[in-house]
């Protein structure tokens, strides 16, 4: 297996190791803007949907964006059509993409998570699920992904519901991401993905928050070395594959993540600056492979 060629992510066949980060590429909207070129030249080897919740969400009040040097802070608030809207109108269109489909899902309680996972996993168009656990448990009030106990409890409950790969998306806002990853692995997760955005709050000179939601999450090249550290720690702690992301902007960044033990690399914020950033990054990764012997990502 070469780190720039075909690979597999817990059973899902991928043409190359570059996928998109959830919520950073809307294939349906991109097709409206760029036409069928999006299909013919799809830059990702798998498509990860924006996070879907049981009920529709309109998202956070504007402003939702702030720019920082080599970074951005967003407080989008997971706007989405909800489970029914997604299955009814989006899924059929996403099924036309030339790559496997991974659906990101999130809910605020096990009771809400279970039917969501079941309904999504039941669809043949869906190759795997990413569980966004950076959410509060309405019962305990704790952020699931910040607590090993909460995380394993959730995964243990969801694991029996489907044979399809369950990828747990880890939050970087913890002292020890590896501990959460181990909890997810022991509870039956097929893979983990990281990093999600880092809690941040742009404030004006008078201390007032700029974002409509008050605070948000930092992403982009500025978080790259934080992602490399967390991915390396997690990959060293678990046997299951790791989807690495966070500030990937160049082929050398992707190579470093693969070298750190990631099986697949996800491109997020870079796609905002260039819709075809992932294609460029993959090209740079291949070129790099010819120069230095970049170690292959773990299958």
């Amino acid at each position, binding site marked *: 297996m070469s780190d720039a060629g075909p690979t597999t992510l817990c059973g899902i066949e991928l043409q190359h190791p570059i996928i998109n980060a959830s919520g950073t590429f809307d294939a349906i909207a991109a097709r409206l803007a760029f036409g069928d070129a999006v299909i013919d030249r799809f830059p990702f080897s798998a498509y990860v949907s924006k996070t879907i919740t049981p009920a529709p969400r309109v998202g956070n009040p504007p402003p939702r*964006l702030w720019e920082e040097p080599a970074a951005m802070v967003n407080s989008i608030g997971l706007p989405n059509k909800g489970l029914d809207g997604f299955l009814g109108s989006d899924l059929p269109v996403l099924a036309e993409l030339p790559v496997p489909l991974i659906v990101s899902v999130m809910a605020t309680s096990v009771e809400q998570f279970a039917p969501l996972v079941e309904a999504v996993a039941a669809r043949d168009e869906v190759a795997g699920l990413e569980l966004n656990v950076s959410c509060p448990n309405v019962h305990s009030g704790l952020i699931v992904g910040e607590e090993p106990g909460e995380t394993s409890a959730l995964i243990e409950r969801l694991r029996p519901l489907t044979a399809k790969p369950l990828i747990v998306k880890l939050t970087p806002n913890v002292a020890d991401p590896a501990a959460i990853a181990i909890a997810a692995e022991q509870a039956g997760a097929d893979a983990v993905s990281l990093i999600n955005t880092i809690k941040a709050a742009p404030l004006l000179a008078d201390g007032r928050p700029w974002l409509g939601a008050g605070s948000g999450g930092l992403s982009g090249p500025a978080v790259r070395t934080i992602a490399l550290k967390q991915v390396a720690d997690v990959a060293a702690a678990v046997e299951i594959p790791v989807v690495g992301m966070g500030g990937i902007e160049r082929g050398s960044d992707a190579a470093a993540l693969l070298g750190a033990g990631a099986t697949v690399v996800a491109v997020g914020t870079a*796609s905002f600056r260039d819709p075809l950033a992932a294609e460029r990054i993959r090209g740079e990764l291949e070129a790099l492979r010819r120069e230095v012997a970049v170690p292959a990502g773990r299958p």
Partner: protein
Amino acid sequence: MIAPFGRRRASVVENATSGGYRIITALDAEGPVPAAGQFYMLATEHGWSGDGERPFLPRAFSVAEATSGSGGVRLSFLLEDVGPGTHRLADLVEGEGLVLTGPLGRPFSMPRELNPDAAGAILVGGGIGLAPLAIWRRTLAEQGIAERSLLGFRDREHSGGLELFRCSEVRLASEDGHAGHRGYVTDLLELMLTGDSAATAAVYACGPPAMLEAVRALCEAREVAAELAMESPMACGFGACFGCAMPLRSGGYLRLCVDGPVVRAADVETALVEGAGHR
């Protein structure tokens, strides 16, 4: 008009001063001819990110003029230097690379689409908001559709781009009285919408939020069909980030980059949105 997938390099052919603004013209070899109201995400090929700080993301700019000829499409953008991104773009010199994605977004609709009885088009522009109206009035003129432009400015420093309105019927207003009617451009619009003229009107507006809101309220009161070309912070410009939320009257938000930037005035709750648009 659909955009080529990915970014591409256009080369700057001119950077001219226009009052308090600049007009940057670049030659886009590949790109299609944009429709009036569409925009591009722009960045400079080099030095995008002055002194270790911003800009990081590309910036959105309405196309103000587009003429296809040998070598590709000549795109002109009217630009006001308000921060690091526009500042760097304003520094562009001939031959430099302008990295662009586009044309993007929903363009203006024909007057008859807005109002079956439309006699013509009334364009209302404020400050830098002249940009999309300049290419729109050209398009209308080419199609022999009557159009009148009402253009307003805060003061001399915040005005420019008038040359883009050559040979069209223009009425001016300025808050400091340095040009035309002393006051708001919406005063001119109000006069124009008196009596039954409202019934045959189709209004197209672009400008600062306060002006757009005045136009929206006025058109709502007079039951005049109108389209507004709006602004909001944008990270991507092609629907990927959901950052460009604009409150909908029907509740929820639209994504201004794909559902706009031109929106039906009746669809939006208000043109005054936190963090969106020019002063």
